């Protein structure tokens, strides 16, 4: 499959703090790609950098960042704005605050279409109502005239999704879209995203810290740690044969029915993601890694393991099988 979005060696820094350090990932057409990692590992920042939506003070650079053949790094702010909401759309973690409280749902949805495709406001409102129905909002006609505060969190996230689809985008970036929602609504939203992917031929870049979500929706996974992609693989492969100690640590934290023994504690990774400044070398995970030795302070090779699977560690492929369980 050809890549819709290709990011190579993305660097993002805020002042002296390096938030993303050479992350590379690609989203193929029609697939769901997950960026996974714990808080502060740079996954949201990577997505915002792709959209050129970094907060003030954020600096991005990349060896390559292309979307459908267009080099995103060379676009002006205006050209980038014409892509956003049009061919690449984004939804956020905070449905409660992501809609403007002062305008109706209809007006906020309609302006996306009129901005990018022109046409009348009435036509845009029709399209909005149609999409609202499509994402499972009942009585869209009434909802169009309502304000965000009159809607629940789950409804607002559906509105955000419908709004993102207004211009029929090729790429949808979803930044922890279900984190703020309760479990039943989470499941509905995930099912919705999966069916929209099929129906609209969407490619989705999904950011999450929840491996349960990854297992359910992702085609490919990039595991991020401290601003780097430490392992990437097709989803099934990642769950079957994780290589990087961090990936293994993450997986051991998740209870799997049938595999978890009662009265035995779940795994955990000690410590937190370190803040990394300029001039850092070697493996960022070494301070928390049980397998670290002095070679981890030097440059770490990226080890390929089959076609689409590689990871960033001193340990040879298959090292884990030699370990006692």
């Amino acid at each position: 499959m050809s890549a819709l979005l290709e990011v190579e060696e993305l660097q993002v820094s805020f002042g002296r703090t390096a938030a993303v350090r050479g992350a590379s990932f690609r989203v193929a057409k029609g697939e769901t790609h997950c960026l996974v990692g714990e808080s502060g590992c740079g996954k949201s920042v990577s997505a915002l950098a792709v959209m050129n939506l970094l907060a003030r003070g954020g600096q991005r650079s990349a060896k390559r960042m292309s979307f459908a053949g267009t080099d995103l790094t060379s676009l002006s702010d205006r050209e980038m704005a014409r892509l956003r909401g049009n061919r690449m759309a984004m939804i956020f973690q905070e449905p409660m605050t992501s809609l403007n409280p002062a305008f109706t749902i209809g007006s906020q949805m309609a302006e996306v279409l009129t901005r990018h495709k022109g046409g009348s406001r009435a036509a845009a409102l029709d399209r909005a109502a149609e999409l609202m129905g499509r994402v499972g909002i009942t009585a869209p006609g009434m909802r169009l005239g309502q304000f965000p505060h009159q809607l629940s969190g789950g409804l607002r996230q559906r509105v955000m999704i419908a709004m993102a689809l207004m211009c029929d985008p090729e790429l949808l970036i979803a930044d922890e879209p279900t984190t703020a929602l309760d479990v039943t609504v989470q499941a509905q939203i995930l099912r919705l995203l999966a069916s929209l992917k099929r129906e609209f031929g969407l490619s989705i870049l999904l950011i999450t810290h929840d491996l349960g979500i990854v297992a359910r929706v992702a085609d490919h996974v990039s595991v991020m740690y401290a601003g780097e992609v430490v392992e990437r693989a097709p989803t099934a492969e990642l769950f079957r044969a994780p290589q990087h100690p961090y990936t293994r640590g993450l997986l051991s934290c998740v209870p799997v029915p049938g595999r978890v023994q009662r009265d035995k504690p779940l795994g955990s990774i000690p410590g937190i993601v370190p803040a990394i400044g300029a001039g850092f070398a070697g493996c960022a995970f070494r301070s928390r890694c049980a397998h670290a030795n002095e070679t981890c302070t030097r440059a770490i090779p990226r080890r390929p393991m089959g076609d689409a699977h590689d990871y960033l560690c001193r340990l040879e492929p298959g090292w884990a099988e030699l370990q006692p369980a």
Partner: protein
Amino acid sequence: MLRLIARRLALGVLVALTVMTLAFLLTRLSGDLAVSIAGPQATQADVEIVRKAYGLDRPLYVQFFAWTGRAMVGDFGQSYFFKDSVANLIQKRLPVTLTLGLVGLSLALIVSLPLGILAALRENSWIDRGVTLFTMVGQAVPSFWLALILMIVLGLQLGILPISGTGTWQHFVMPGIVLAFTAIPALTRLTRSGMIEAMASDYIRTARAKGLSRARIIFKHALRNAAIPVVSIAAVQLGFMLGGSIVIETVFALHGVGYLGWESIAKNDFPVVQAVVLVLAVFYIGLTLLADILNALLDPRLRTG
């Protein structure tokens, strides 16, 4: 929406009644009115005649209800010094004060909105620092001093504006500038902080993610939300401006309601004082009500309240 207006209106009436009571009591506290009306040469007998003639010998509550009852239908009695009815006096002076207030507020908005927006969009730049410094200085400068400086520079040295009187539109320029300056600092800082907060909000990130133009993001999505606190404070500022107009009208000898108030206080013309206080209070109440309605239009969350 209608319920909100009705509730605010009822509240306004209560405030007006309170102000009426206070205005009435304060004028009575300022000394024996019969003595000051009769004048310094008057004998004790003259004072007693005056006291009877003006009804000042009646119990306080009788005087109060008599005055309130007439005031309700727009009859504020006769002025003791101007040989005219109070209602007439106020009617003649009101347009001057209204013009001054309107000029002042327009100038204030024209200056402070763009300044505040500019400072917010260039937060921490030298423009922002300059604006902050300007508002601090503006806050610290007393309006009578600014009035005098303007009179000296624009009126006497450059000779381009008249320094006192009410005749033409030029007479409103300097007082308007001075009046605007009483509101500019607060309005500018409020616009700035409101815009900074709005621009950093999640819904602005959404607006950017939608690919909207920068102008639309700033002037539609951010300004609409930043305007809500500005409108509330602008109403309060206008109240201060009304009070400030007493000083400014006096300094520029602009014959408005404020000047009338100053004159009548000096002469113990208490029917006029009471009426002026009431008129200013009604203005203030009206403006606050207007701000509430405007805010409800700007912020849908307030409409159901």
